[in-house]
Each structure stands twice: as structure tokens, then as C-alpha cells.
């Protein structure tokens, strides 16, 4: 597989920024994995290594005022929507400087002011929330769109159905973005639905459905861009299904008995979204291997700095325990 042609509207600078961002996402989650294994991060976490193109590509087409809703597997979305990796890492380290002051952890990172309406610990829980955020945009004529991430597994929750129907009849500016990474925890999408593509469910709501290569950054950008435009033009929602794969286990302690090593290798070797982008960049002579490596190293360094920031940050004081239950 080779990635799509680069859209003419993109500058080299933007492409290299995206390349850097995808590494930032990958290193962030690799680092979390490492600290988790060591017991330095507790609780639970869900890593998006291997899925960097969906987060980076879909969020790239958003304006700053656009909003996203994210999932339990949300670090990538968060970074791509412009979050500070220091504060993200600090949150995972349960520190006061974290996005949630240490109260939320991996599954609840949010940055409401910057339009990240939050990860969600409830599979499918964010989908109707995205609809509500889009309703605000429409009712107040704010012009923003909402990008709603969810997984293949979430597409079997009732909330998916209710939310898509609502958004469609109200013609709301929302893009439903399904990251189909082939499994909902251990449940293979092939066994959990009896159709080929989740994107085809769009027809139940009278909205367009797109099925795309989720590991191809430019395919993601193109489909999402079009959907966001449609949304902002008042033409209503779109359902996008992006085929991708999670490299790691579902969360901590996953023996991955539900899939084969061969399958994992195929996705890692043939469909690594970062490698695909690198090949395209080199082919198109937008940067040298050395330049790409420098971006990669820069990302690595940023994550190491984030860890340092997190480690040095203070823990929240016990006095905060009962704060912020009410506004």
C-alpha cells in the first residue's frame, strides 16, 4: 500500500508538522506503555499506537473553534486537537498540573476551552454529547463543527443509533468518525456485526457514509475535510469509517488471544501509518531521511520532557478531594 497523493493545498511545512505530530502521538503512548508496565502509571489506559493517522488527519482539517469528542483511546485525538503533552502526561501521572488536576486520568482528559470536550470511559457515551455540542453551534449560529470519534465496538451501542438519527433529522454540523481497528476489546468486528462496513450504517439515517483507509493520512484528511465542509454548509452529518488497527493490547494485561501474530505483523509491516507517510514524503522529495529523523527525535525528546514535567509536578493536595463537584 502506498498513501494517497498529497492534496495540493497542503504546504510542505504542514506535512512535516503532521509527520512530527504522528510521532508525538506514538511516542506518547509508547511512553505511557512503558511507565504502565513499570507501575509508575496506575489505573488503566488504552493506547492508539498504529492509529496515528486517524487522529492527526481528522483533526488537521478542523479550525480551532471546532470541537471534538473523544474516547477511552483518546491520547491521539487530544494531541491532534492541540493539547499540551506535558499536561497530558501530568494527568496520567495523577498530578495537579494535569488537564484534570489528577482527578480524571487517561479516560477523562478534556480541554473544554480548546474544544476537546473530553475522552469518555463509557463506550459510545460521547456520541450523543457530540450531537448536543453541534446543536449549540446551530442554535447559536457559531459556525463550528464537531468531530465525534468512536470505535467499531461503540457502533453497536444504542447511543450510536439514537445520536446519528438525531443529528440527521436536525441537520447538525457533526462528523461521526468511526475508528474501526477491527476489535472492540476482544470482539472481532467480523463477529460483532453481520455487515462488511460500519460506514454503510449511514443509510439508516439518510446521511452520507464514507469508508476509508484509516492509516492513510491523506485519505483521512480528504474524507474528513469534505465532511466538515458539508457540516458547516448546513448539510448535516456524515459517517466516516476509517479502517485501522491497534498495535497494542486493548488495555493493560491483554494476552491478545483473539487475534493472530500474522495479522498483527501485517498491519505493523504493511500498514504503519507513519511509515506510509514517510514513503510518500521521500518519494515526493519533500524532505530527506535525515530531516524526518530529526522530527522523530524531536517528538521523542518532547515526550521525555513531558515525563520530566509530570514527574516533577506536585500531586494534588487532599484538600482538593471535595472541590469541583459542583460549579
Amino acid at each position, binding site marked *: 500500500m502506498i498513501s494517497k497523493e498529497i492534496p495540493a493545498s497542503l504546504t510542505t511545512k504542514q506535512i512535516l508538522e503532521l509527520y512530527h505530530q504522528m510521532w508525538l502521538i506514538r511516542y506518547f503512548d509508547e511512553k505511557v506503555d512503558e511507565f504502565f508496565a513499570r507501575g509508575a502509571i496506575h489505573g488503566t489506559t488504552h493506547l492508539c499506537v498504529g492509529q496515528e493517522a486517524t487522529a492527526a488527519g481528522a483533526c488537521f482539517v478542523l479550525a480551532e473553534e471546532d470541537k471534538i469528542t473523544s474516547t477511552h483511546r483518546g491520547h491521539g485525538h487530544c494531541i491532534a486537537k492541540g493539547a499540551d503533552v506535558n499536561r497530558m502526561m501530568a494527568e496520567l501521572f495523577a498530578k495537579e498540573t494535569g488537564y484534570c488536576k489528577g482527578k480524571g486520568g487517561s479516560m477523562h482528559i478534556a480541554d473544554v476551552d480548546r474544544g476537546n470536550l473530553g475522552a469518555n470511559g463509557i463506550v459510545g457515551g460521547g456520541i450523543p454529547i457530540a450531537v*448536543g455540542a453541534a446543536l449549540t453551534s446551530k*442554535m447559536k449560529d457559531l459556525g463550528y463543527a464537531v468531530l465525534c470519534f468512536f470505535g467499531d465496538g461503540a457502533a453497536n451501542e444504542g447511543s450510536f443509533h439514537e445520536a446519528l438519527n438525531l443529528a440527521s433529522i436536525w441537520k447538525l454540523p457533526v462528523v461521526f468518525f468511526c475508528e474501526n481497528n477491527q476489535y472492540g476489546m476482544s470482539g472481532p468486528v467480523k463477529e460483532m456485526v453481520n455487515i462488511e462496513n460500519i460506514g454503510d450504517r449511514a443509510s439508516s439515517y439518510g446521511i452520507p457514509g464514507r469508508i476509508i483507509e484509516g492509516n492513510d493520512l491523506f485519505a483521512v484528511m480528504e474524507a474528513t475535510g469534505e465532511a466538515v465542509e458539508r457540516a458547516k454548509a448546513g448539510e448535516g452529518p456524515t459517517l466516516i469509517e476509517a479502517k485501522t488497527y491497534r498495535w497494542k493490547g486493548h488495555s493493560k494485561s491483554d494476552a491478545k488471544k483473539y487475534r493472530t501474530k500474522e495479522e498483527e505483523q501485517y498491519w505493523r509491516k504493511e500498514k504503519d501509518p507513519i511509515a506510509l507517510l514517510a514513503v510518500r514524503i521521500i518519494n515526493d522529495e519533500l524532505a530527506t531521511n535525515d530531516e524526518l529523523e530529526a522530527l522523530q527525535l524531536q517528538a521523542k525528546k518532547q515526550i521525555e520532557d513531558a515525563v520530566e514535567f509530570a514527574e516533577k509536578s506536585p500531586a494534588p493536595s487532599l484538600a482538593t478531594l471535595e472541590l469541583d463537584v459542583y460549579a
Partner: protein
Amino acid sequence: MNTKDMTYSEAIRDAISLKMRTDEDVFMLGEDIGVYGGAFGVSRGLIEEFGPERIRNTPISESGIAGAAVGAALTGMRPILELQFSDFITIATDQIINQAAKIRYMYGGKGKVPMVLRTPGGSGTGAAAQHSQSLEAWMAHIPGLKVVQPSSAYDAKGLLISAIEDDNPVIFYEHKLLYGMKEPVPEDLYRIPLGKAVIKKEGTDVTVIATSVMVHKALEAAKLLEAEGIEVEVLDPRTLVPLDEASIIASVSKTGRVVIVHEAVKRAGFGAEIASVIVESDAFDFLDAPIERLGGKAVPIPYNPELEKHAVPQVSDIVEAVKRTLQRGKEV
């Protein structure tokens, strides 16, 4: 302020209109709230005044519309969500208790969810087991929610205005049997603070703490007992969260005897919380008799009207409980 005779239902509608006229961010969503006027007619006429954008008729998708309210609230609106029967909270529970109630805390104090969920609870209309529950204790158990249960038109209007202006998710329990009850209500906007109980009738011998429709039964019982020379104080907490513990403790400390009565199933009902708050407080030392707690029987609400009636406390039950507590007090 000018007052006008209003039903409970009209008072609620009035609160909604007054707020919607002055605050563009306030809007209503729910099933059949448009031309139909809502399952109990509360929103009648509102779509004519405010149009279908702000009186937003929804499909039958309780979890979807609750989530839409959460998302809208989180991004700057002040939605009033109507669920036709409070039993249907069971379909929207995730959105209400995992999302709305927790978002601000989970996010470390960022974001807020100023929404009101209005919904009628209670039995007495022959609607049977799936349309007659009183599950306010559930909501009161969840940090992050406020829970309101007005028992009169006056309270309903003032509390609803406060609920709409509150920056937190508020569960506003109406009662089907109260919709038609009338009393003089100020025409202007006024507020009753959340967390302030009211003494519906003063008395010295025993405190009856009653909620929602039971306030009226308690007042009836008080009248009957008055004839026997027993002075009952009737206290209506009005909001369960925040709970006006101070007023409860003050009244109980004064009378030394308590009957708690709600329509919800007694087992694990909110009456248990009120009883516990009392015995944990300094009022314990003033108690001259064990607390009497009345609540619904541990049965789904049956359809047959006689059975239905007996599934929840009646005036006579309150009268007897008051007498028991006075009697018991004497023995000790």
C-alpha cells in the same frame, strides 16, 4: 408582586417562559413537547410562542436526547429536558449520572453542565408499574446532581427558576397528581433557593417530614390530628440535594418526634437518609421516640386503583404513625 391563581403545571410553564424570554440560551427538548404540549400538557402553548427550534420535539430516544442536552449544556446552552415519565430515566441513566453529574469533577473543575431534567414521578393515575415509580433516591445518591421535588405551584415556579439558573445538572421531579393543583403564584420571576426547606404548617408535638404529594397527605393528617389536639409540624425539604439539614434538625429538636413520609419504596428510599441524618445529629438527644418512617411498599405499582392506593402511604397511615410516635414517647 401581583399574584395569580395558577396550577402547578401552569406555574412550571410560567417559569420556563419567563426564563426563555430573557435568556436566549434556555431551550426545551423532549418527546411531544411541541403541538402536543407534552404528555401532561406542561409545555402547551410554548411552541407557539418560541417556535420549534427552542421547543424542540425529539424522536423517542431518551439516551440520545439526554446526551444532546449534556453536550449542549457543556457548550453554552441551558437545556431543559423533559422526560415524559421519570421511569424513563432508566434509559438515559448513563448520560445523566456518568456524564452530566461527573463531567466537571472528572475534568478537574473545567466545563459545566447547566441542564434541568424535568420529569413527573409517582403513582395514582393507574399507569402501572413502568410509569409510576419514584426513584428520586437514586439521583440523590449521585454526587454532582441536585435533586428538587416541589409540592406546590408556588414552590415549583420558584424552584424551577433557580434550577434553570443553576450551573449544574438538576433533576426536577414533578408529580402527576399535583399538576392540577392551584394556588396564588406571583406573576413575576422569583427564586426559591435550592437547599431551603419550608415549614408548611407549624406545630409543636411532632414533625412530619414529607415530600412531593405526601406533603398534602401530611397536611390532611395534621388537620385530622388537630381536632384531637395534636399539633403537627409539617416540613417539606423541597430539595433533597442540597438537603436543608439545619431546618430538619431544628424542627425535630423542637418537637422531639418525627414521622418521615414519602411515596417512594421505603426500602433504601430517601427517608432512610433523612432518618439517618437526624439520628446522627444533635437532634438525636432530643428524640423522645423512635423515628417513624413511611414509604411505599416493596412492590411494583399495581394497576388496580385500590391496590395502587395501598401501595403508598395514605393519610390514615400518617395519622397512625403520628399517634404511634406520641404513644411510644410516653412509654419510654
